[in-house]
């Protein structure tokens, strides 16, 4: 099947997750700077959950993003 990080739904879910819990700046992906920010935030989230820090939207990372949880951000103000 398609790799997880290719699936646009997964990308949208990840963007919402990282925006809400890791302070990913809102804005359109596609520009290089925001792609880097996107990957940096994935790494931050993977580090927090002690997942393998790859910056990629792999299955384990998506797994955690889909689990029911508290709405308070994990990091930052």
């Amino acid at each position, binding site marked *: 099947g398609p790799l997880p990080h290719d699936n646009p739904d997964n990308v949208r879910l990840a963007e919402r997750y990282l925006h809400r*819990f890791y302070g990913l700046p809102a804005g359109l992906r596609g520009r290089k700077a925001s792609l880097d920010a996107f990957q940096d935030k994935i790494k931050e989230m993977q580090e*927090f*959950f*002690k*997942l*393998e*820090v790859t910056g990629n939207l*792999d299955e*384990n990372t998506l797994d*955690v993003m889909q*689990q*029911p*949880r*508290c*709405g*308070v951000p*994990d990091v*930052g*103000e």
Partner: protein
Amino acid sequence: YNHFPRKLKWQNTNITFRIVNYTPDLKKSDVDRAIRNALNVWADVTPLTFKKLNEGIADIMISFGSKEHGDYNPFDGPNGLLAHAYPPGPGIGGDTHFDEDEHWTKDSSTYNLFIVAAHELGHALGMSHSSDPGALMYPVYSYGEGFPLAEDDIEGIQELYGPNPNHRKVKPKPDAPQKCDPMLSFDAVTELRGETIIFKDRFYWRIHPQFVEPEQTLIKNTWPSLPNKVDAAYENPEKDQVFIFSGIRMWALNGYTLVDGYPKYIHKLGLPKSVRKIDAAVHIRETGKTLLFTDEEYWSYDEASGSMDTGYPRSIETDFPGMGDEVDAAAFHYGYLYFFHEHVQYEYSYNSRKVIRVLRANSIFNC
């Protein structure tokens, strides 16, 4: 554990709270009890006291709402976001909101209001999220029985407010074991469809051949009906089943699904009633036998006939020379048996009947 930036906390220890509205999922008295018990969890380990107000403005205003509910921090319908709370402070500080689109319960079915409230009130008192999967302040929901605070949570909240001067006796959950602790020992090791599952205390690590970093999870998060502690486990690839042992009971898993008809007593395998616990279990595909280790002896179970082989139990020390006489966990890979005992593992050649290497038990984690 983590705190909010600037270590936000309440400046006095007498905190007021008010339950502004109620969920229709539970009786009003059940909601009152869940919130009170959730507050007591933190009061047990700090000097904090909580006084309920029935009107007016309290420090902690507790309410149920769905989607946009007045704080421009909307909920998202069923599942996903369950609740949120604000750090100590004036106005919205300390306020705690529950997503009314969830189904709130007082048992293990989702979502237990007491557990979620205890977590959110941790925020309302100044705790941020913890990355310890066994801590109450871990961001992902998990249901657990008993006192919900782990040592990690208690250290965090006492750093803000100090201990309870009356030293109420509490039994906190032990923190999650650290994979690179040199003294780490294992409870059980098994394969599960190509992954390696390692059980330790309330947790298990899952090692996927394609991922370097093992993933640590609460056992009950994946298998709610399994006990908090596993003694032994093995996979029978022919049946595509993993067998889990704890005390005199055993469970069969088909992937992550529990097989009907379990748990069963381990004596159904043909073990005598005197055996009360299996220390380790390992299936050897080439012979179709499963070895079950108890104290200094081991048994051989023939999977095809579903019966115990005659002539057992036999002495571990006699048949597996070169390693101690007790085993915590065992695994079999490519003709080698791996016996784990305390912080050591022995790589044992099944064919040449001798120990080939002695490694640290957690060398499997590439520490």
